[in-house]
């Protein structure tokens, strides 16, 4: 496994464990030294985005301490409904 994949897998694992994510899906990528991307889980249901971010960053800070800002970029937190758009929208 490459270093890039290692970094992505490690963040996925840390977030799943720390946030107790239900049925998580990830669309993450490594950009330079940081991992960024989308996290999809029903765990985020009923939370405003600022609350989702607070929980994500609290989890990363608990996992990595001050190192978290060097490892993590930006994560967009979706519920499955927000990610899997209904088929009746007219996206071409």
């Amino acid at each position, binding site marked *: 496994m490459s270093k890039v994949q290692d970094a992505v897998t490690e963040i996925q694992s840390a977030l799943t464990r720390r946030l107790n994510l239900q049925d998580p899906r990830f669309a993450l990528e490594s*950009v330079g030294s940081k991992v960024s991307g989308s996290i999809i889980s029903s765990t985020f249901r009923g939370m405003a*985005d600022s609350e989702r971010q607070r929980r994500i*960053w609290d989890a990363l800070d608990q996992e990595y301490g001050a190192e978290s800002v060097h490892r993590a970029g*930006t994560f*967009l937190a979706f519920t499955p409904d927000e*990610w899997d758009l209904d088929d*009746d*929208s007219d996206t*071409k």
Partner: protein
Amino acid sequence: MEQESTKLKQKTMGEVDYRKGARDRIGDSYILLRAEAFGGSAYLGGRGAEGALRAVLWKADPEIQQGRKSLDTGHDLRRLLTNVRSLGLLRAGGPDDPLIAAVQRVARLWYNNMRFASSRAIETRWHQLGEVTGKRSIKQAASEFYDACSVVIKRCEALCQKSKTR
């Protein structure tokens, strides 16, 4: 030297550039929100929303991709939304209503020249708009503004991802 400068000017941004830029701006916006730097947070959140709408337009319009039509729509978020709707990407009353409402909310409070404005000036403007009141602090208003920008960016990201899989 002149040729090099022309080359740089000709390099246009595409869907991926706008998407990743929007994601980075909303990330920056959250960092500033946490640090209670509300003016910078609001500015970057709105800029991210603009980038996300541009990404959807770029992705959906082959004329823009082929350079036959410009994406130079200015920074009017309502106009960008109108262009997205005119491409048939959204359906009134359908699942995309959250995008429409969120863009309207962001557009009411965000303006391009926010980039030059002091945090105090932004707070004063939001006060005049009734967004900040005696009972509603700038912290609360900035947090909800961040949430609206995030809704725009996430919905645009989902639209781009959806069209990828088709």
